[in-house]
């Protein structure tokens, strides 16, 4: 029996007076009772809009649902329901968990009050019974010492605990259908693992149906009974999970599965979407591409060596006291010429701080960074400029790392100007155009502004900017993490091609262990500002020595497969 039936759902968004954008184009699927259905797709696929339509939470000002669309919940069309009835249904029978627990909880109310509000409104509890039931719920979502946690504010909890609170609010009224929109995307892998276990357990115990929305196919393989793959507002394929992973029918599904770096092999280049959807090139994928060799032989020249690198931040507390936060505590590592050092770790492990210290964007508190034998941290002022240009960095967020008021041409010629490369502007522009071609963008892009590009294209521009100065060390700080998997594969291929061509060294930082395994010749694991383990990728992934490394590896989704 189906709890929810979505039929021909189409949603339009108004961009301005003249333009409308069809975000969802006739989507149909079912959610059977007590089962988990996963909506999978990349950004812009319409998966979140679909979920919001079911909840009746689309913004009324600019979103319209097509009149032929039907969303049947136990046979009632939710789209025709009156506002009051819908509100009653929401929270009692339908509940939703959002991606960002921090912004989904109201920062000025205590956790206990916010859960209690749901109980008072929808269940009609009052007085002591609210408190008792809240404690019960917090215990059920795995929050230790729930009596004390009742009176804390959201900011006093970690991201994982906040998401647990959100889940407690969602299940407070024992909903029949739980919609989870990327509930673990903002969380670290080990926390993601815990939350996934919690959600799966709750679903079983409360016999809920669940609509699970994510971009991560590996995650889906663990939890879903049925998978719906979406792209550009359309359903590309829907099938039982077991069948979809064994025998994907649609080319796009196959591409999504293939463009993640595989766990057991290391192909020369990763397949990208175009290989599957494009014409004719499909055949090349089937050939087993030659394996790429990783790891160090031990006789490579050292480009950069860090010894006892440390950074502390000081916070004022009260009037006189200062609190010290040690972001990096004595990290020592070495980067070989033309090779890649991968850095993995969870948020707060100090991996980004290490990158900023090496690039000299932050001043180190202690330690030394030897670049070709010279201590970089000792060089002051303008004497550091020649070294600065040899170490470049590509940041995580391509939306924030390009100055929105500069054209791409200005962005790319600025470093050349500052360092006096090229005789005149025309020559610099020619160099910029050449670099653009190298990262796969047309020369017309020089005249455009960053907001006219997609995330992947912007990251290409950021890479081109770093390349203008012909660096010997390129630091990639989560450079592909914010991008869709298909775009991620393209950029990883680009980075690899550039390394092959220019023999650059990479300091490759990521929380994504599969990507690091694919890219790195040596992997450094960080936790709480300390380096816990450094080893070759195959060695580290096969025989992790440190317990934390083992914990990290066991948390990678989809290992059960």
């Amino acid at each position, binding site marked *: 029996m189906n709890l929810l039936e979505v039929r021909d759902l189409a949603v339009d968004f108004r961009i301005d007076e003249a333009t409308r954008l069809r975000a969802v184009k006739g989507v149909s699927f079912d959610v059977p009772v007590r089962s988990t259905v996963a909506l999978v797709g990349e950004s812009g696929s319409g998966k979140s809009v679909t979920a919001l339509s079911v909840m009746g939470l689309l913004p009324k000002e600019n979103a319209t649902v097509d009149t032929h669309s039907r969303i049947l919940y136990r046979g009632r069309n939710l789209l025709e329901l009156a506002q009051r009835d819908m509100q009653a249904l929401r929270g009692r029978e339908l509940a939703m968990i959002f991606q960002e627990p921090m912004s989904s909880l109201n920062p000025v109310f205590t956790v206990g009050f916010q859960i209690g509000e749901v109980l008072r409104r929808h269940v009609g509890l009052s007085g002591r019974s609210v408190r008792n039931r809240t404690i019960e719920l917090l215990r059920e979502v795995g929050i230790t010492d729930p009596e004390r946690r009742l009176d804390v504010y959201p900011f006093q909890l970690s991201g994982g605990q906040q998401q647990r609170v959100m889940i407690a609010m969602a299940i407070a009224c024992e909903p029949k259908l739980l919609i989870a929109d990327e509930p673990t995307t903002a969380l670290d892998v080990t926390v993601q693992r815990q939350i996934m276990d919690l959600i799966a357990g709750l679903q079983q115990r409360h016999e809920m149906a669940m609509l699970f929305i994510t971009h991560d196919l590996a995650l889906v393989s663990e939890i879903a009974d049925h998978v719906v793959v979406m792209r550009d507002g359309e359903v590309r394929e829907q099938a039982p999970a077991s069948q979809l992973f064994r025998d994907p029918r649609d080319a796009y599904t196959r591409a999504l599965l293939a463009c993640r770096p595989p766990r057991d092999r290391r192909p020369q280049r990763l397949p990208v979407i175009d290989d599957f959807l494009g014409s004719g090139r499909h055949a090349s994928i089937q050939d087993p591409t030659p394996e790429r060799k990783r790891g160090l032989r031990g006789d490579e020249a050292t480009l950069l060596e860090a010894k006892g690198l440390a950074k502390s931040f000081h916070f004022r507390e009260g009037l006189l006291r200062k609190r010290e936060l040690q972001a990096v505590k004595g990290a020592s590592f070495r980067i070989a010429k033309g090779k890649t050092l991968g850095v993995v770790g969870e948020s707060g492990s100090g991996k980004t701080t290490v990158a*900023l210290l090496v*690039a000299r*964007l932050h001043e180190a508190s202690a330690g030394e960074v030897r670049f070709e034998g010279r201590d970089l941290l000792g060089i002051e002022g303008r004497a550091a*400029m020649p070294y*600065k*240009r040899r*170490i*470049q*960095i590509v*940041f*995580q*967020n391509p*939306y*924030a*790392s*390009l*100055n*929105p*008021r500069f*054209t791409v041409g200005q962005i790319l010629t*600025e*470093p050349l100007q*500052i*360092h006096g490369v090229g005789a005149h502007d025309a020559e610099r522009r020619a160099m910029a155009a050449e670099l653009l071609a190298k990262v796969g963008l047309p020369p017309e892009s020089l*005249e*455009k*502004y960053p*907001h*006219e590009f997609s995330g992947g294209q912007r990251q290409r521009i*950021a890479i081109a*900017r*770093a390349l*203008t*100065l012909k660096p010997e060390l390129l630091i990639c700080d989560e450079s592909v993490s914010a991008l869709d998997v298909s775009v991620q594969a393209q950029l990883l291929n680009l980075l690899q091609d550039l390394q092959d061509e220019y023999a650059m060294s990479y300091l490759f930082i990521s929380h994504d262990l599969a990507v690091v395994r694919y890219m790195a010749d040596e992997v450094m694991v960080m936790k709480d500002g300390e380096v816990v383990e450094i080893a070759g990728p195959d060695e580290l992934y096969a025989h992790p020595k440190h317990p934390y490394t083992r914990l990290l590896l066991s948390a990678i989704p989809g290992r059960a497969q």
Partner: protein
Amino acid sequence: MRQAGVWGLAWKRFRRDRLGFTSLIVVLFYAALVLAAAAGWLARDWNTEAGVSFAPPSFLGPEAADSPQLAKAAEGAQPVADYGIPDPLAADLAEIAKSMTGGAAGQSRAPTLPLGGDKWGRDVLKKVVKGTETSLVVGLAAAVLATFLGTVFGALAGFRGGAVDDFFNWLYSVFTAIPYLLLVLAVAAVIGQKGVLTVILILGLTGWTGIFRLVRAEYLKHKVREYVLAADAIGASPARRMFVHILPNVSHVVLVQLSLHVVLFIKSEVILTFLGFGVGVDTVSWGSMLAEAGSELLLGKWWQLTVATVAMALLVTAFSLFTDAMRDALDPRLK
């Protein structure tokens, strides 16, 4: 083909705002008026006494001047003045009166003027045009000065942090701790001489504090953004990061503050002049017109007050609406 930049998009959004666009036209009209007045095409002879004293507006006709009760009251007051004592200044006054009438003897004085005349028979219409020039120049120049100071101080404090930030915050606290009018009057008293430049300096040197606070906050926010770090990584100097990279990204805040302060300073000039700290007697501004209007109103001569008020209210309202529309258009929600 050049793509629409950030400013191009802002202009597109602005044009769609009908109220804002109308306000822009009003503001531009005033600007044209000021330019014409400054170039001497309009109202150059505002100081000539073209009409009779308190000449009424033409649309009321000449009778409006001698409202009977007032004339009677004036007559009744006459005998009280003498008590048979000879006026020691009578001879001098007669001479002055003679020379004055002699000077204007060439042209007969008009009984009415388009929008009325003041005590000396000067044309209110010309006065208000010339006054617009003074007020708008004072407002604009003072706002530019204040915005410049606020932006530079704010940029330095926010970007440099540390001791520089402490210093400017101290300066800010000192300036804001003193009641505004008291501060203005103190600066006016120190500078001493009256004049347009003085008013500009008074308003500019005291008015930068609000802009400083906002710009400093913007710089604090922007200096840790990745694009600024990226500029650091390619070797851009601190000054370059401050003014080439960050400034264009906070320019919408600066621009909106600039136009808000134009409005504020136009009003402040009026208040200052009204209080006697404003422009000198040889210059006309809305403030000096309103200062005169107080005593005129007692005599029932309402036109100078009305004209100056309407002119000021129209510009201030249009400028405020224009500022609002500009803020909406510039809000960089662009990704």
